[in-house]
Structures are given as C-alpha cells and as structure tokens.
C-alpha cells in the first residue's frame, strides 16, 4: 500500500520535474536566439534540414489532401445543388484546420523525430559534453538554431500545404468533376477572409512550430544516453507533439473562431 503510494508520488514528481526542465530549456532556447542571429550560417543549415527536406512530403500530401477534399466536398455538395461552393469548402478547411494541423503532424514525424534522434545521439556520444568542455554552449550552438529553424519553417510549410491543397481541389473539382472555374475561385474569394481565416491559420502554424520543435529538442536533450533511450525519446517526440498539436488546435480554434 505504502509502496504503491510512493510509486505514485515518484511518478508525479518525475512528471513535474520533466515539465520544469522543459520550461527551463525553453527559456534558454529563447535566450539563445540572439546568438543565432549573429551566426546565420548555422540557421541556414538547419533551415535546409528542417524545412527544405520536409518540402517533398508536404507538397505531395497537400496535393492529395486537397484532391480528397475536392472529391468528398463535391459528393456532399452536389446533393444540395451547391457544388459551386466547393472552392469555399476546400479553402476554408485547408486554411483554418487541415493546413496547420496536418503540416504540424507531418512536421513532427519528419523533422521532429530527426531533431530528437540527432540531439539524443549527440548526447549519447558525449558531443554535447565535449562542446561544454570547449566552453561552447550547446544550447546556443546546437539547439537554438534548430528551434528557430522550426519556428520559421512551420508557417511556410503550412502555407505551401494550403496553397497546394487548394490547387489539388481545383484539379479535381474543376478539372475532373466539372465545377465552374469562375465559381470555384469567386466563391472562395467571397467567403475566405484575410484576417479571420488566413492570419489565424498562420498564427496556429507558428504555435505548432514552436511546440513541436520545443518538444523534439527537449526529448533529445533529455534522452537517456543509450541507443534504447534515444529510440524511446524519438517515439515520445512524435507521440507527445502530435497530441499537443491536436489538443492545442482545439483550444486555438475555440479562441479564434468561437465568437462567431
């Protein structure tokens, strides 16, 4: 009985300890950002591995998600004789929800796991301790550039995802199913609002970018320095950041679109 209670207490304390370490790391990451701006070359390298290398999966899945939306939306709307609103349906779904959320999930799987594995291995092979020995701050040198790169890449990737998705919906709706081309674009332009929809989508993707990269870097830095520890940390990154993205998405949606 007492042992079970002790176990519970230990688990809870461990949870809060990790939470605290995560926030301290977040604080140091923010402090490290100015020193990244002094060395843009580090940032460039990370933008390449975090952003450019995620581009292909984003382009392909964006196009297919847009095509599916076009097809599903058309099949539903045609019952009401409202297939002209297909453009609105596709654009609003992508810009408000699917663009930021699916991009963040793919980003967690593609870039987040790679970040965790990279940093975890650096820790396991004592490269991070080596840097400290040489008086190089690994947070400023290794983690802050990756954090900033994730922060910059996510909104760009989400915008690319939405834009490609709209084109995919156009391809299926107008090209294959025969929705009027002018109606597709004009209904979309009439209903999608720059401030309410597009800015809020960008804000969402910024938040997701911060959260996913933060979780990825924290898990890498916090990994048990063995090969098993790194693999578990990588799994945790994908699971935790996906859950965080989906949960945060609900909260952000309620805040942004709740009052109308």
């Amino acid at each position: 009985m007492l042992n079970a209670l002790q176990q519970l207490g230990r688990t809870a304390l461990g949870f809060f300890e990790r939470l605290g370490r995560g926030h301290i790391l977040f604080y140091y990451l923010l402090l490290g950002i100015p020193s990244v701006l002094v060395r843009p070359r580090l940032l460039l390298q990370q933008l390449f591995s975090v952003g450019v290398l995620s581009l292909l999966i984003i382009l392909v899945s964006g196009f297919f998600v847009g095509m599916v939306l076009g097809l599903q939306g058309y099949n539903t709307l045609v019952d009401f004789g409202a297939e002209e609103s297909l453009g609105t349906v596709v654009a609003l779904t992508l810009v408000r929800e699917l663009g930021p959320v699916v991009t963040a999930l793919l980003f967690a799987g593609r870039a987040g796991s790679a970040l965790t594995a990279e940093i975890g291995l650096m820790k396991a092979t004592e490269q991070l301790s080596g840097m400290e020995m040489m008086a190089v701050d690994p947070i400023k040198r290794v983690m802050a550039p990756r954090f900033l790169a994730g922060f910059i890449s996510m909104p760009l990737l989400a915008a690319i995802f939405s834009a490609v998705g709209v084109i995919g919906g156009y391809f299926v709706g107008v090209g294959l199913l025969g929705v009027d081309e002018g109606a597709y674009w004009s209904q979309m332009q009439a209903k999608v609002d720059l401030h309410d929809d597009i800015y809020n989508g960008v804000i969402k993707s910024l938040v997701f970018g911060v959260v996913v990269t933060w979780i990825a870097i924290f898990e890498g830095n916090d990994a048990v320095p063995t090969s098993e520890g790194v693999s578990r940390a990588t799994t945790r990154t994908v699971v935790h950041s996906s859950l965080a993205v989906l949960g945060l998405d609900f909260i952000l949606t309620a805040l942004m679109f709740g009052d109308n």
Partner: protein
Amino acid sequence: MMHSRSVEIWVGLFVAAGLAALFMLAMQVSNLSMLNDDAGYDVTARFENIGGLKVRSPVTMAGVRVGRVSHIGFDPQSFEAVVTLHISSAYDGLPGDTSANIFTAGLLGEQYVGLEPGGEEEVLRQGSEIMLTQSALVLEQLIGQFLFSKGAEGEAK
C-alpha cells in the same frame, strides 16, 4: 559543411516558395478587397429588427458590393437596432434619401443590407443617418401572419 552554395539556394527556394504560397493565399484565396475598405465613410441606419444580420455582412446597391456592416448597436430609448454601415469612398455620391433594406441571399443564405437610391441632391456623408429603412423578414413572423389571416378567413365564413 556540405555544398554550402546548394544549401543556400535550396533554402532560398524554400523561403521563396513559402512566401509565394502565403501571397497566393492572400491574393487568390481571400477577399483582400476588404483591406481597401478602410478608406470610406460611416452612415447609420435604424431597424426595428435586423434578423440575422452580422458585423461584416455585405452592403450592396443594385447587387454590387459597396461596403460592409461595421457595427451593430442597440438604442435602449427607442428599442431599435442601430446598424453602422461602412461604405467605400469610391461610392460617395449616394443620395441622402437612400433607403436601406435587409434582404436574404437565397432561401437560406446570409442576410445583407441592400441600399435603394433616392432622388435627393444632398449626398450621404460621414455620420449621416439613413431615414428610410425596412426590417428583415423574419420567417416565423411571416408564417404567423399567414396563419392568423387564414384563421380570420375561416371565422368569416
């Protein structure tokens, strides 16, 4: 560091593509013309009932969009809704006795304010009030009136 030049080119391409996508979303997908509405003037109109009119609903004249609803208030003295209409400065020659009606786009569509021009020389300016207004048609009231008149007919027979 791997081919630094090609890394730079790829990152440049990535950032350019991202910005282009944002730009496309802003220009092609959304109604950017909303932003240009900032130059314009506000007129108010009082309605007995605005139905489902909302802030940002369109204001049209002859079917052309000339502005949007910028504010909806309530006058506690007269128990009327006070609707502020923001009209683009491109349409600054509207006659002073223009009337405002609340219409519904289609059977289930959203509601909007339709303006009908009058014949006065005087034009609407910042702060003017539209005196001639017609409230929204509320479907329940209409059905109620119809039922009452049917009932009255039945009694007369």
